[in-house]
């Protein structure tokens, strides 16, 4: 019993650690003072001015567009890439994994400047160049999320589909896709997270007039973060929270590897 209490306490402390700063951001969104270090009373002003702030709203849509689009593109390329890598011989497999890991271990600024130097040779900087950059740094995470699922998938189901008359593409879509979908999904989420958080690479590869929330926030540190940012973060936080809870409902049906422990007992 004592142990249970200790365990609960521990979990709560970890949660506190992770969420205390977020609570501060939420409080700040109601702070009437423009300075984050001065409490100026309660206000909802920032929530209303947020909607009218075209710079922030534009950056918001750019951020979302960029995150979703880059996550989508990297998921598609990553999915096919992972399947290809999975089918390779051991040596090629290792080589591919090595290169897949490289963007992860490169300092952001190095990646950002290298891409900048490369992009300017054939591409005007703009939304598309940032998109290319984001896809580039998303890909490793996507691939590394999908590969284990490929390793776990039941290839016999695919063969069974062929056996029953399905063409390869059809069998792939109907049979293999549902099995690796959780991996693709987590890769996608990971990519969205990475894309939304990135500042350095985005900064160096973006064109004039293109802003994401990250680049805005970076610029604002100088003069103090605009309170609208806190309001926006708060709104986003609760939207994501609700979305995650909704997404979570059918989650258990997707046969995720968390359930593997249980399923051990099932097959006798």
């Amino acid at each position: 019993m004592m142990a249970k209490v200790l365990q609960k306490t521990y979990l709560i402390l970890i949660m506190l650690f992770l969420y205390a700063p977020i609570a501060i951001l939420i409080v700040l969104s109601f702070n009437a003072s423009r300075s984050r270090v001065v409490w100026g009373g309660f206000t909802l002003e920032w929530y209303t001015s947020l909607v009218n702030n075209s710079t922030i709203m534009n950056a918001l849509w750019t951020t979302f567009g960029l995150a979703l689009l880059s996550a989508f593109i990297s998921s598609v390329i990553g999915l096919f890439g992972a399947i290809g890598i999975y089918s390779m011989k051991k040596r090629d497999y290792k080589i591919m994994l090595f290169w897949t890991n490289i963007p992860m271990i490169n300092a952001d600024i190095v990646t950002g400047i290298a891409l900048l130097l490369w992009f300017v040779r054939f591409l005007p900087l703009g939304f598309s160049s940032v998109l290319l950059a984001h896809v580039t740094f998303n890909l490793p995470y996507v691939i590394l999320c999908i590969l284990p699922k490929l390793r776990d998938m039941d290839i016999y189901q695919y063969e069974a589909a062929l056996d029953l008359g399905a063409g390869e593409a059809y069998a792939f879509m109907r049979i293999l896709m549902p099995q690796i979908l959780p991996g693709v999904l987590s890769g996608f989420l990971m990519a969205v997270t990475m894309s939304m958080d990135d500042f350095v690479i985005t900064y160096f590869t973006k064109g004039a007039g293109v802003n994401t929330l990250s680049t805005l926030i970076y610029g604002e540190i100088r003069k103090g973060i605009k309170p609208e940012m806190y309001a926006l973060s708060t709104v986003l936080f609760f939207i994501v929270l609700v979305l995650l809870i909704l997404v979570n409902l059918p989650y258990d049906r997707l046969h995720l590897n968390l359930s593997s422990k249980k399923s051990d007992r099932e097959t006798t």
Partner: protein
Amino acid sequence: MNRSKSRLLSIPYIIWVIGFTIIPIIFILSKAITDSDGALTLANLLAIFDPIHRKALIMSLSLAFISTVLCILLAFPVAIILRGSHIRKKSIILFILILPMWMNFILRILAMQMLISNNGIINNLLTGLGLAPMKLINTPGAIVLGMVYDYLPYMLLPVLNSVLSIPEDVIEAAKDLGSDKLHVLTRIIIPLSLGGVGSGITMVFVPSMTEFVIANILGGGKIQLLGNIIEQEFTVSMNWNLGSGLSVALMIFVLITSFLFGRNREEASTGIL
């Protein structure tokens, strides 16, 4: 699946890797092995051994190492508690743990700064309770705190995944053979989740080696990490050759360490779900 045919599927990815990983790396490499006049030199690579750089490297290494170890130490109990718990939807917990990552990183670090600054929330709480305020911010410890805070979810995910997927009967077998709880932990659970820890290390240790924002905001700019130096070589001193050289050297360093420690890292990168 027809292997030779499905290998073709990776062509777009391979093109992407060549186009956007390998070519830029060549750019960086070519900067790294030349000086500002374009003459070949190893000086930029070897500059990592200059006393100042070496000091920064050692500082980066120690902070990244401590952060990684702390992340492991914090994440393991979570995984083990969740494994033992009867919570049906462990996935919900998982999501709650990663949700903070969806808030902008700088905002979170700034909030952390408000928590731990001299006249910050924690110290105000302490003085309110009649205790002496603590020196938290602008110390190496604050940087470690920031890194742990920012990277903990990246450790939690893979560790949780691998701890939860250890078959129960293996643990029962160990108990059956006489293991007590501690022994099960050290001999069975930890060794069997090393894969997950490995990918956690990749996702925590590697970025903390190149981290500079946390060091600037929470370390008060008094602590120089290799990430800061690389950043400064690029943006302040505008010595791209040295910056490239240092980062290539760092990359080689990380590759070597990850080769030594994370042999089955790819095996274990379990992803979020």
